[in-house]
């Protein structure tokens, strides 16, 4: 029966695809299909149809690798998972209707065919969803790694002076990372002054302030001084309104001033050289 269905689909492929495309275009809220070029649409439609048939003909393994390729392609095209599941349902519907109309499916074998259809469609759906979530999970974990690589490294700029530029949102996990890198870096670079640059931190709320204060306290314990630099005017106002006490800190508006101050603390200064 599998073979029969596959043969039927292959024999009437052009018609089925055009019916299916029409149905998909009628779907509301789905721009992805309407915006595709004619050529690309024909190509993806055929690929989709082939994938559907391959589950009837090929071994499970061959089908799975093909499905993975397809899912990745679909993800890149920006098809939503709702759209893909709809596409599968419509495809099966059209074939069922056509086969009924042509009386290949009749009262005598309808029960067997219904079972056959559900055996055919259910695994496709399941593995599509699986392929999707796998792609998502991979993307998310890669981005997480990328984010971690971006966050919080301590850069030695002068002897005894190091800078840690903070960029982006600080959550609990990053706050931990900042603290670890800060302390490790201070010891490793033998820093006496550390400048925490918060120019790139969009919001300084009480939690972020709390983490910064804790980090500075810890730095003090390992024998270095901590300075908070890059405080934008609007952040300064919010900090004051919130009532956060940063009196124990030396703070400056820009990194440049911070560096000058840090050099002064270590009894040095930058001078212009005269010829």
């Amino acid at each position, binding site marked *: 029966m599998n073979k029969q269905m596959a043969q039927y689909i292959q024999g009437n492929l052009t018609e089925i695809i055009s019916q299916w495309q029409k149905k998909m275009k009628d779907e509301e809220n789905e721009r992805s299909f309407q915006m595709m070029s004619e050529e690309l649409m024909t190509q993806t439609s055929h690929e989709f149809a082939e994938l559907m048939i391959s589950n009837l003909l090929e071994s499970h393994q061959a089908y799975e690798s093909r499905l993975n390729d397809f899912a990745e392609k679909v993800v890149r095209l920006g098809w939503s998972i709702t759209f893909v599941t709809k596409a599968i349902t419509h495809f099966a519907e059209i074939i069922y209707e056509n086969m009924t109309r042509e009386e290949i499916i009749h009262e005598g074998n309808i029960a067997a065919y219904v079972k056959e259809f559900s055996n055919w469609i259910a695994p496709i759906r399941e593995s599509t969803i699986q392929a999707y979530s796998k792609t998502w999970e991979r993307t998310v974990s890669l981005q997480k790694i990328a984010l971690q690589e971006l966050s919080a490294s301590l850069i030695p700029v002068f002897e005894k002076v190091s800078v840690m530029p903070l960029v982006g949102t600080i959550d609990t996990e990053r706050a931990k990372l900042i603290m670890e890198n800060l302390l490790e870096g201070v010891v490793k670079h033998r820093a006496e002054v550390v400048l925490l640059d918060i120019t790139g931190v969009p*919001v300084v*709320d*009480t939690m972020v302030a709390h983490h910064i204060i804790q980090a500075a306290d810890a730095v003090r314990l390992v024998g270095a001084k901590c300075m908070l630099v890059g405080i934008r005017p609007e952040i300064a*106002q*919010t900090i004051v309104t919130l*009532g956060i006490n940063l009196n124990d800190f030396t703070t400056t508006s820009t990194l440049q001033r911070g560096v000058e101050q840090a050099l002064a603390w270590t009894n040095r200064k930058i001078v212009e050289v005269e010829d």
Partner: protein
Amino acid sequence: MSDQSSVEILTEWDIVAARQLGRNVAKELGFGTVDQARITTAISELARNIYLYAGKGRIEIQQLTENGMKGILIIAADSGPGIPDIRKVMEDGFTTSGGLGAGLPGVKRLMDDFKIETILGEGTDIRATKWLR
């Protein structure tokens, strides 16, 4: 008249989403950078309270127009344990989580109007408004 949108708070990253939403609405309404920072910080505090103390809840952002004045309303609602002593949490420096204890009183100062309703065991509803001047 109001226009609203909301963010469910379940994870720490939802706080960022709520903040982003608030910032966009504030920008659209024409708030300056200082007020934008105040509004986003207030949202950040309220959203973090939901995340820390209630586990889940929602932040709603509404645009307000009243007597020709424009404003932004932040609603932070949860079905958490509620707050036993409101007077205490509105004191500077009071904290149950080892934080700075500047959250709620800070939000009150950052915004123009601040209302808090809480029922023990049923949840908390905080409404804070900032008017455009």
